[in-house]
């Protein structure tokens, strides 16, 4: 048996950070592909029937604009958590994570409100099926993000305050989500 010299304990190499970044890449690909198919189907529907959104369906703009603004808040709160964690400012870190979770809940609530206002059944044609597919996927990603925030907060409250990597990864996740919603907002809610 050959003996290699032992190394010192390997330095942390930002595993959670890299994992979160890859997850964001996957999320962007997922939503990007869905938006691409959305744009294609929209163009074909307009070319053939002249309309895409079913008659009688109104896409509410106020709550969707509020969601977009809320994402600005989520990004600010996420970065606030990073800033505080790097300074070992425990109260502010926990407060920032709490605010992030609260606004994420607000987004989920606003999206549910959009569903309610539109009154669209999932079986009401191609638009409805695609609308619920893409926004449903967005809701799923929101719930995952909310869980991520809760886990990061509990780890921090539980005493792992030196582990700032998860706080940074958490912020990266929400930056990715913000970009994703900005694209959905433009294509699904503004361009319609």
């Amino acid at each position, binding site marked *: 048996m*050959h003996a*290699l010299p032992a190394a010192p304990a390997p330095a942390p190499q930002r595993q959670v950070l890299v*994992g979160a970044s890859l*997850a964001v890449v996957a999320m962007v*690909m997922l939503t990007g592909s869905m938006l*691409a198919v959305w744009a294609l189907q929209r163009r074909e529907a307009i070319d053939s029937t002249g309309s895409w959104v079913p008659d009688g369906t109104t896409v509410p703009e106020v709550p969707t604009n509020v969601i977009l603004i809320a994402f600005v808040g989520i990004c600010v709160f996420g970065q606030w958590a990073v800033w505080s964690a790097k300074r070992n400012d425990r109260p502010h870190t926990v407060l920032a994570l709490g605010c992030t979770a609260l606004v994420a809940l607000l987004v989920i609530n606003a999206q549910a409100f959009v569903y309610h206002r539109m009154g669209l059944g999932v079986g009401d*044609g191609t638009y*409805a099926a695609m609308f619920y597919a893409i926004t449903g996927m967005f809701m799923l990603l929101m719930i995952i993000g909310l869980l991520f925030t809760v886990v990061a907060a509990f780890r921090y409250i539980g005493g792992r305050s030196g582990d700032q990597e998860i706080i940074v990864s958490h912020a990266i996740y929400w930056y990715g989500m913000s970009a994703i919603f900005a694209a959905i907002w433009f294509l699904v809610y503004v361009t319609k």
Partner: protein
Amino acid sequence: MTTIESSPEAVATGDLDVDAGDAVGAVTGIFTSTDHKVTGRLYLAGGLLGLIATVTINVLIAIERLDGTDVVLDVEVLPQIIDAQYVGLVFATLLPLVMAACVYAVPLQLGARSIAFPRLASSGFWMWFGGLVLTTIALIGNGGSLGGDADAVDLFIAGMGLMAVGITATAGAVATSILTTRAPGMTMRRIPPFSWSALVFSLGVILVMPVLVGTLAYLFLDHRNARTGFGGNEGIFVWVGWIVTQPVTFLFAIPAVGMLAELTPVVFGRRTPVRGILFSGLALIGVAALAGVTQQNIQNLPWAGSQLNVDDLETKVRDLVPFLLFNALPVLGMLLVLLVVLQTARPGDGSRFKFSPAALFAFFGFGMILVGMLGNMLHAADDLGLQGTVFEEATLVYVVYGAVLAAMGATIHWAPKLWGAKIDTGKVLPLALLGLTGTILAAFPMYIAGFLDQPAGVSYVDDDLAIWNIIALVGHAFMSLTVLGFVGLLLLSTRHDEAVGDDPWDAQTLEWATTSPAPRDNFVDVPVVHSAEPLLDLKTASTSNDGSNA
């Protein structure tokens, strides 16, 4: 000595501390284990089961094609059989077998104690397996792209989505491992070629599979409700057929190519020269991911022979650029890898030759994949009239069977680390030749039949085509024998009590610095790496010291 002692029993039980006789505990240990070697073995077992099923389906289709008009099988099940062939070749065979090698070998090669996110990797396997079971149930229940049962069609879509999510989860763990858990001193330029190919493959999967999942989500909701936007169940493969055809499958075969690059230096006892070119070649094959990202499978060259002139140059350039980008760049990547392999194998300069059955499998696999890639380039040319014929299926068979051969080579190579035994070299050699012959006989006649306009599917009218279909049946039968023989040898090898040694192949990379089989945490002390061939450094240093002492 930098490794810890271990025993096969200790490794096999996974996380739980159970008695060897406690069958329930052992099974629970396997189900809940986060050891990457256990997860890799599960992928291997699942992939081999999928391979046996897929090869059986291929034999059934070949029997059905013996006579182009008479129907041997029940006509009602033919659509499900065809679906099962494509899904089986890619999702039940190619992806799990390649992923298995990545999961069990990469952390060992990196000098890591564990894969990154081991629970994610393990849950990825179970999601893939669950998806495979659901897809199989759906196909049995008259589902699939031409199925007659609406619920079974929904189940088919959901099963494919679950498989895609599972494979993506495991790919995320593999990619993160390579990016973050390398031993000290192991820069990205120093990682072994197989690990590099695993990185390209994993990143490609992370880019491509979410695109599939998104489209499947649309298909599922549309099929379950309106069925107006995506063509119902017949539209399934119109929208997601790219995932089971070329060039995306090239992406999934990259680790199979990496196996040849990994094993050539072992056979010839020499350091890999021009690693930058080798890595570029492997990465160039990854360009095939573009076909997945853009959801395209054929980049047509719609020029008739008389139009091979410079008229309408702009249109022709527009056709040519995506064709070259999607199809020719992967071939260029393969040629670069081959160039480096030949450079490594050149005689002289202290090279030696130590036969490795794994390298033979990998070499045959590489050749088959290359033939599949070249066939795919021809397939794109409209003028040849190959689209809609069995030619496309033949390219898929070349790529998948080629990757299967390479995956068999990977299993033979790393078997000492997986269960502490070597697979009998003398018995494996005929299997390699049988597998090569089987692949060529199964696929090449279909190339010819494609040129003779045999349509895709199972029926044809021209009696002259029968001979090519008979030869293809023999090829698939040979492949069945290869697979069964290989599984039998694997099972026999696990019962071997003979000590295999820690470095039976006289290899160069870190996994051979630990015991055989590799213990639960791989390494007690993470070794320091000073070059791309850390074990070879040590052997060379030992030889020099011995010489100076003498």
